[in-house]
């Protein structure tokens, strides 16, 4: 059996007391890495420096600095559905807690997720790195070093341990007597693993089972993972099946000497888990070693890279990182510029619906677009317009004919919408429409997606996503105040699609829309309905809508200078 996650933290601390053993994780790794010239620490220290600078945080010690360099989200764990947090997928609270301790105060974010789809809205698959190796060979440490030195956000670490099969009472009994073979491919639910990894690679939202090593069963709650650009998958039998290997873009085998691995196992099992020497040796001889010889060692043939000595081998790890970086760069592109210049002209798509332009609508636009309008009036008339927009949008829902009896006992031919409605706002400006959604749709459930534009690249980046439960079959009103190039809207729609919401169930609402945004959205997502109150002339080189309304969020919330 591979190292149970709960014991891992302690084992690393114990091992790190020995100067001969460098294979450790958590804080100690950063300490050991710090001695290497020109390695990760310089990059992590500089990126942390900028973080600290921009947020006023006081991350100063070597330990907290390198830990903070790990990409993490700004939210409480468990409250995030799209996680960029690096922790073992089945991890207990200790690892995550340590990371969050130094980052909790961060409310401003510098690293969001860049687009994971192309200008046509089609997905780019995530880059999957598979890491195999014998028990206690240091796979997780290698994985964490790769992630840390890669320095890109939106990386997830998926552990094969999460996919252990739940045991029957008889098997649990055997497990207690060291008679159950945890090192055999049959001990894992490989089918579920393949399905999960495949979905994750496709950018879909997935539920990772949480395996309880004490009861040898799956806990009822699952760990949700969403939004990985790079997936690091590790496990002793990571290469055990072809369909699993086929999902990997790079296969790494960590080849650590068997005596070092046995020494680690003995220390861990005896010192931390209170097992007796005889039992550990028995399990090692009966299951661990045969599994190594029969399944694990032969799987080295499938590896693209073999890393001798595990995490100690910085040359190999740096080579891996260079390769992955190169691969990621080839996949990247300048998204926003491309869509700003693409598809500006041509007839408006059939999916566009503009609120009928009565004099009231025009008058309200006249007020909110006027740069001299005081904020009080800006808010009032924006809200009036939004209410009309939401009412108008609802008329595109599918209605069913129905007959009702009126108080005068007459039968009346009417119609009702019998489905579920969910609102999703694009933070920040889209939130201003939540009031209108609530005024019109009783008890509507509201999700939020935070997308910010990276100031250096101009690319949209996903920072936060929290959607309501029970999305299946629901119709989604996705709201934002304005749409210019459509970059943020495309990202938000992509998030919804990744959560298995069909395109035709999505309506995108905005007060003002520019032609480029409409064309881009319609081209990428031809079934998404675009509902707006007025179509503007163009988007200028600064990505501003002309004539436009200025920065809607700033004017509404009063945050402009």
């Amino acid at each position, binding site marked *: 059996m591979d190292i149970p996650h709960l014991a891992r933290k302690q084992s690393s601390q114990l091992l790190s007391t020995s100067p001969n053993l460098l294979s450790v994780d958590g804080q100690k790794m950063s300490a050991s890495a710090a001695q290497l010239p020109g390695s990760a620490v310089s990059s992590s220290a500089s990126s942390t420096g900028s973080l600290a600078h921009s947020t006023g945080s006081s991350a100063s010690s070597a330990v907290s600095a390198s830990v903070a360099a790990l990409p993490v989200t700004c939210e409480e764990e468990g409250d995030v559905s799209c996680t960029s947090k690096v922790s073992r997928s089945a991890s207990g609270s200790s690892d995550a807690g340590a990371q969050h301790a130094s980052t909790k105060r961060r409310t401003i974010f510098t690293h969001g997720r860049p687009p994971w789809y192309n200008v046509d809205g089609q997905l780019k698959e995530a880059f999957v790195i598979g890491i195999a190796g014998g028990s206690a060979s240091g796979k997780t440490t290698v994985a964490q070093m790769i992630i840390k030195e890669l320095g890109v956000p939106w990386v997830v670490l998926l552990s094969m341990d999460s996919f252990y099969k739940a045991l029957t009472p008889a098997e649990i009994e055997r497990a207690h007597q060291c008679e159950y073979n945890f090192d055999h491919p049959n001990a894992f639910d490989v089918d579920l693993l393949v399905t999960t990894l495949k979905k994750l690679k496709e950018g879909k939202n997935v539920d990772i089972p949480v395996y309880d090593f004490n009861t040898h069963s799956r806990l009822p709650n699952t760990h949700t993972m969403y939004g990985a650009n790079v997936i690091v998958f590790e496990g002793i039998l990571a290469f055990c099946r072809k369909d699993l290997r086929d999902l990997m873009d790079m296969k790494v085998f960590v080849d650590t000497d068997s005596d070092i691995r046995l020494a680690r196992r003995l220390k861990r099992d005896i010192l931390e888990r209170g097992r007796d020497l005889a039992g550990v040796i028995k399990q090692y001889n009966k299951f661990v070693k045969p599994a190594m010889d029969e399944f694990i060692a032969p799987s080295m043939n499938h590896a693209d890279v073999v890393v001798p000595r595990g995490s100690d081998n910085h040359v190999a790890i740096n080579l891996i990182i260079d390769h992955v970086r190169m691969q990621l760069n080839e996949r990247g592109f300048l998204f926003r510029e491309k869509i700003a210049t693409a598809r500006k002209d041509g007839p408006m798509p059939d999916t566009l619906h503009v609120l*009928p332009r*009565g*004099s*009231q609508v*025009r*008058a309200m*636009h*006249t007020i909110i*677009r*006027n*740069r*001299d309008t005081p904020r009080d009036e800006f808010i*009032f008339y924006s809200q*009036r317009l939004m*209410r*009309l927009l939401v*009412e*108008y949008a*609802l*008329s*595109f*829902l599918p*209605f069913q004919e*129905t*007959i*009702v*009896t*009126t*108080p*005068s*006992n*007459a*039968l*009346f*031919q*009417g*119609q*009702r*919408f019998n489905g579920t409605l969910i609102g999703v706002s694009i933070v920040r400006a889209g939130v201003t429409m939540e009031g209108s959604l609530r005024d*019109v749709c*009783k008890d509507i459930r509201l999700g939020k997606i935070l997308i910010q534009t990276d100031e250096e690249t101009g690319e949209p980046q996903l920072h936060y996503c929290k959607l309501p439960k029970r999305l299946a079959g629901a119709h989604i009103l996705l709201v934002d105040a304005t749409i210019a190039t459509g970059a943020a809207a495309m990202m938000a729609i992509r998030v919804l699609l990744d959560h298995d919401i069909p395109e035709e169930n999505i309506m995108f609402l905005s007060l003002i829309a520019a032609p480029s945004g409409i064309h881009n959205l319609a081209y990428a997502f031809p079934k998404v309905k675009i509902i707006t109150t007025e179509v503007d002339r163009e988007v*200028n080189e600064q990505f*501003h*809508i*002309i*004539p*436009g*309304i*200025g*920065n809607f969020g700033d*004017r509404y919330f009063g945050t402009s200078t």
Partner: protein
Amino acid sequence: MHQPTAVVAPASTIYSTISQAECRQRWSRLTLCEETNQVKELHTIIRDRRTAGNDFIFYADRLIRLVVEESLNQLECSETNITTPTGSVYAGVSFTKKLCGVSVMRGGEAMEKGLRDCCRSVRIGKILIQRTESSSEPVLSYAKFPPDIAERQVMVFDPQLGTGKTACKVIEVLLEHGVPQPRILLVTLIASQQSLDLVFKQFPELRIVASQIDSDLDDNHGIVPGCGDFGDRYFRTDDDQ
């Protein structure tokens, strides 16, 4: 809940409203709200006799808001250019004439909130018309208007027009106060075709905004299919809970 006193048609008759095309043809000074799917749904809900209490108020308010927005569209406006924060010029409109609402008690008062939500400091007058015991003809009981009502555009609110006799009496009173016919806009949710015929016959220069037009009246002057007594349902005076 309003108990029907007479069934005017066999229960198997399924009513729909008079089509927008027919309405346009018959009453040139009538404006109907665009009949979108959700306007139809709102009507389905408020006409359903099972819709009670807060639900009735919630959905009636939504419909009222849409009718009020549509009626504001009828007001005079003039072209104007403004500058946006990006420095561009936007060709817009602004309203010229001062506005005043008049709610016909009691149902019309249910529509005041809808008006107030759109025009925050609008002046609102009130008028109460009642039928006397001796005759079915409506009589003015009470009226209170802003002093300069003759200079304003006047929107009269009454959610239902049954026979149209009450509405006619209200218009008469407004004319007596010096408001010219073309400046009066009668705003309602559901009107019977009989009421439209009567009102437009007496006041050909008046304009009416409505949401749906029903075809019948019952013996008790109630609209059929209608939505029952709007005031009773909205103010819950028929509620025994």
